[in-house]
């Protein structure tokens, strides 16, 4: 198990679990990041934060901190 934030640009993984609570959890689930979903790391912003991910055909950016709370299974 790895965290989403540790994915290298271009690698793919499956979302395993989210240790985020409250409204942010809701928001992240609404964007399609749910256990079992495929996610691909596109790469970080120049400063390293946020990081862009491709999920279900769209690209979203997550804060490094939040991505660190999502565990993934490498494919």
């Amino acid at each position, binding site marked *: 198990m790895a965290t989403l934030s540790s994915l290298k640009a271009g690698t793919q993984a499956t979302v395993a679990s989210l240790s985020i609570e409250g409204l942010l959890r*809701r*928001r992240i689930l609404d*964007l*399609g990041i749910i256990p079992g979903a495929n996610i691909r790391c596109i790469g970080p912003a120049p400063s390293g934060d946020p990081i862009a991910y491709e999920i*279900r*055909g769209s690209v979203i950016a997550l804060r490094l901190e939040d991505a660190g709370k999502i565990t993934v299974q490498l494919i």
Partner: protein
Amino acid sequence: MNITIGKRRHSPSFNEHIRKHFFHLPLKNDQAVVAIAGNPNVGKSTLFNALTGLRQHTGNWPGKTVDRAQGAFLFREKSFLLVDLPGTYSLLAHSAEEEIARDFICFGQPDAMLVILDATALERSLNLALQIMEITSRMVVCVNLMDEAGKKGITVNIPLLEKDLGVPVIPTTARNGKGLKEVQTALYEIAVQQRPTAPKQVRYSAEIEGLIQELLPRLQTLPAASFFNSKWLALRLLDSHPPFVENISRFVRLQNAPTATYQEVEKLHAYRLE
């Protein structure tokens, strides 16, 4: 299980009162209200303009429509008031724009909902459609950006989607006006002719379904029960999101219900928090 999907019809004057009070909607007599909902940047405003002939500002960035825009069109001699809601991924999140959209869908008593999906990101847009299907059966789904999808080599099986969702599904390319007539026809059938639909309902885990069953009998005695899908209301109480429960309470109060009703909603909510 005894669940009413969708709302009972209320007298036009009462609906008008609600719409004026909450949403400042200037309504002509006998006008059908249709609200447009969808994810950010799926072409809601483009479709709105194409249907109404207005030139509401459109743009390719999320958060462009922060408030509601309204316009009207005539179809088969029936006047429709179209309300363009801000884009939202969910009815359960809580940015200001999303609350505007959510409150209108929940309390605005639209005669029909027009839910726009992005043909190039269908999976993501279906989340909102399923949430709206939990609230109302009076809806039309529109799969927009068909041209973009075509360019990306994506084809959408519209008849299958329609069968799976249980509500009318229309493919459109709002930018060149493709599919508009079909959208208007479907809206007419739903809002005016009361064509029945059978929206597919989400099944939750056994634990959650159990809690819903526990709350349902108590919710169905509320006068407000005729406005909301009781299963949906039960789910919101289970979410325990206080600001939204407050809105529901406010709505119940406006209905001239005895104060006891309002307290009952709060009590049910407190009961869930225990």
